[in-house]
């Protein structure tokens, strides 16, 4: 039998279109694209999907349509891509098939159609349930529309719904953050991702800050919010299984496997191979990472002359040392920690032996722990808060 890391365990499809770009966004996403561009892009995606992959694909490989906003495409366009994946045998019996949607770009009919195509999970960009906050970061929807969209997804038959939330927003307070979380807990969502706002270079948000037109919560306030989120969600029956990700616990079971945790994202954190298609999308075959052109036209051109040399040109080879360091950094994001037995098997390195001296001070401060039973190295919740400092050991 093949090892887990010898097969693609996840399939990612990037849809780089948005109705409007949010002020903080620096991803590959483009607003105001014509229908013609979208059509050509979908054709390009299908071309790339049809090209032979370097590894076999696991039968239960997860599916994820992310963006941008995949729901800005028509159902027909999404259906075309799904058909291409199925035709190629990449979509057979997925553990999970997620599509990202934004409130304001879906209705019940569209969501039902997604369900019909085989998607099992909706990931919704809610960000906040406070209209002032939403407006301040350039979101196109209101709080009410977000709650409606969640209700629609439930009505369309989705059992697994995630809501993305951002803390550290302009003018945000602990009270408004609490209101956002409480509002979401009252809905059918079974998963929340909570991210701290990052001011990226070159974004309109950065400019607004420089011009003093908006202000953000200070370092201590942001830390208070961070602490509050995990405490509050923990009390409300959510299991934190990754630095920023929480899954609702079932009534009978306390175990993570019985929750709606993201099987797809877990593939990234376990550093297993994933195939990817689309502008800016990164795939990983265990030895190389391939990051596709970010620009839509460049991506389309890339798919017009596919061949080995195209992939060689975008390959980022990862030697054993880099591979191990990424394996550890990604794995330590999981509450369960990183599997050191797998590290030994994949990279031939005894992690505790190699990094023991550097890890010791963090273990003494109870930021890092080791579970002998599962051979897992993990960050405590205190450690997660300062994860970057600890990850430094491995770079």
């Amino acid at each position, binding site marked *: 039998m093949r090892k887990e890391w010898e097969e693609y365990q*996840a399939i990612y499809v990037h849809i780089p279109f948005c109705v409007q770009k949010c002020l903080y966004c620096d991803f590959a996403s483009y607003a105001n694209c014509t229908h013609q561009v979208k059509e050509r892009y979908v054709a390009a995606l299908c071309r790339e999907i049809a090209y032979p992959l370097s590894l076999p694909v696991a039968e239960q490989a997860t599916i994820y349509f992310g963006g941008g906003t995949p729901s800005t495409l028509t159902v027909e366009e999404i259906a075309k891509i799904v058909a291409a994946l199925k035709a190629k045998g990449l979509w057979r019996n997925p553990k999970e098939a997620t599509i990202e949607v934004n409130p304001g770009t879906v209705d019940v009919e569209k969501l039902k159609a997604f369900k019909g195509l085989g998607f099992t999970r909706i990931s919704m960009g809610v960000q906040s349930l406070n209209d002032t906050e939403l407006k301040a970061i350039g979101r196109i929807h209101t709080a009410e529309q977000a709650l409606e969209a969640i209700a629609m997804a439930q009505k369309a038959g989705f059992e697994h719904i995630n809501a993305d939330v951002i803390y550290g927003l302009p003018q945000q307070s602990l009270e408004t953050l609490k209101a956002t979380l409480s509002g979401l807990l009252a809905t059918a969502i079974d998963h929340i991702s909570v991210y*701290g706002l990052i001011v990226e270079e070159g974004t309109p948000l950065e400019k607004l800050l420089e011009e003093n037109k908006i202000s953000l919560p200070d370092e201590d306030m942001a830390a208070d919010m*961070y602490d509050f989120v995990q405490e509050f969600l923990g009390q409300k029956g959510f299991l934190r299984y990754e630095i920023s990700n929480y899954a609702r616990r079932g009534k009978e079971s306390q175990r993570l496997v019985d929750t709606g945790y993201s099987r797809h994202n877990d593939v990234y954190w376990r550093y297993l191979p994933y195939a990817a298609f689309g502008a800016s999308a990164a795939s990983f075959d265990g030895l190389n990472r391939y990051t596709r052109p970010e620009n839509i036209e460049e991506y389309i051109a890339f798919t017009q002359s596919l061949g080995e040399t195209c992939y060689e040109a975008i390959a980022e080879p990862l030697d054993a040392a*880099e591979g191990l360091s990424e394996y550890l950094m990604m794995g330590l994001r999981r509450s369960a920690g990183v599997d050191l037995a797998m590290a030994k098997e994949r990279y031939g390195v005894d992690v505790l032996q190699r990094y023991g001296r550097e890890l010791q001070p963090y273990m003494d401060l109870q930021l890092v722990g080791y579970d002998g039973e599962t051979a897992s190295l993990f960050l405590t919740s205190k450690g997660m808060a*300062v*994860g*970057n*400092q600890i990850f*430094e050991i491995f770079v």
Partner: protein
Amino acid sequence: MDKKHIRNFSIIAHIDHGKSTLADRLIEYTGTLSKREMEEQILDSMDLERERGITIKAQAVRSIYKARNGEEYMLNFIDTPGHVDFNYEVSRALAACEGALLVIDATQGIEAQTLANVYLALDNDLEIIPVINKIDLPSADPEHVKKEIEDVIGIDASDAILCSAKTGLGIEDVLEAIVERVPEPQGEPEAPLKALVFDSKFDAYKGVMLYLRVMEGTLKKGMRIRMMATGAEFDVVEVGCFVPTIQQTDILEVGQVGYFAASIKNVRDARVGDTVTDANNPADHAMPGYRKATPMVYCGLYPVENSDYDNLRDALEKLQLNDASLVFEAETSSALGFGFRCGFLGLLHMDVIKERLEREYGLALITTAPNVIYEVVRTNGDVELVDNPSLFPDPTVIDHVEEPYVNATIIVPKDYVGAVMELSQEKRGEYDNMTYLDDTRVMIHYALPLSEIIFDYFDRLKSCTRGYASLDYELSGYRYSNLVKVDILLNGDPVDALSAIVHKDSAQVRGRELVVKLRSLIPRQMFEIPVQAAIGNKVIARENVKAMRKDVLAKCYGGDISRKRKLLEKQKEGKKRMKQVGSVELPQEAFMAILQMD
């Protein structure tokens, strides 16, 4: 050339008053270098000198000038360092001349630094030729400057030369004045050799090259010479001069200026101010005025990486070959590990050495705050010189402490007199006297502790006078002072490299300011770090560096890994400039915190 046709001169000028530009024009005019060969300000050869616009090492250039009277003259221009740190070297360079051009900016007037060097030149009986530069500028006021020269310095300025080194106006007049007014050198050609060393420089192939002025007799290639102060003897391998490129002449006659090399390995054997004589027929007396350059300012230099210790020592040894005034000895600090305590002529000298170590030798260094040498008299009568605050004895065994004082001269527009006096008073200055230079400018004399000058006196002086004040000072001696040692504790442990000696009256305030500054300089770490200032066992101030609460990248999926890794690499690189002291990581700035207080 007979000595009737030799003229040896220097140029005295304040920074930015145009010394280097004038030197360039003189050399260009005499045709020593063609315009094409002429590189801007050729005399300042080190990169650092050019960047800082100051001259650190003196040089000498010989040129031949055909005067209006039709005769050819040999003009030797001896360049002098332009900073108070190198006062002694200036005095030796001036002693090698018969005349000096006093260059004053027609728009600025006399400055404190100019004045100090004019007095040095007068002490050496030099003929002084006032040259008023930058007369092409619209705000030039040469008549005013002339009056100032007469009132302040007391020399006749009626025949001062007006020129613009920038445009070339008046350059010939300057050359003619040198020929006519600078006296020809004295000295017996037949007497035993006596030559004054005014500079030296280490050359990788020739060894130490000594720049000198022959006062009596003749220096020839092949001669055995003796350095009269150190007693060292050498065989002269090469003799020549600079035109301004090197030219071997094999001989230097009485009155002439040039260089020689004698396979001398270290500048310590051939110090500035020493007298060179014929080993087989020595002169009776050396030239007066020799002294060993003594460091006034000390600091600790430590490699950021402990493994760079040997590289740092090698680099210091190499720099010392060229700089006899740099002293260092190994020391250890419980906070910083192995390093060196280094002595410098002054702050500029310290900065230059530090920058050269970092730039030319690629070393990452931690520098402790500079300090002066204290004279500690113990209760048992023993006197101890302390050049490192952390070695300051326990107060119970100290009878009293003395610290170095300087006589400071400050020239400032009269509207700022109040501000200068207030500042000087605050800095423990003792008022001496005040003279009006003219209707608008005042010269003030103060006795000030050198440690206050090192601390922030000059910066504060500049800011409280909007940059108009000029300052000069010379060491006047040691005086009794009520000083205490302030220790800094991080996380409860004293950090020796952060100790400071301060006056008792300001200890409380300084201690407080220091911990506040340190709190802002030390980045948050995994745990809270108390920063305390203490005198003996008594804590006088405390601040906390709060623990880092959050530093984590929220989002990290398949496409984010490369970027995330780059961020972490950058973060790690940033920490390489930090020094691990116990369990705390300190940035380099923390060790200079005492100099950076607001």
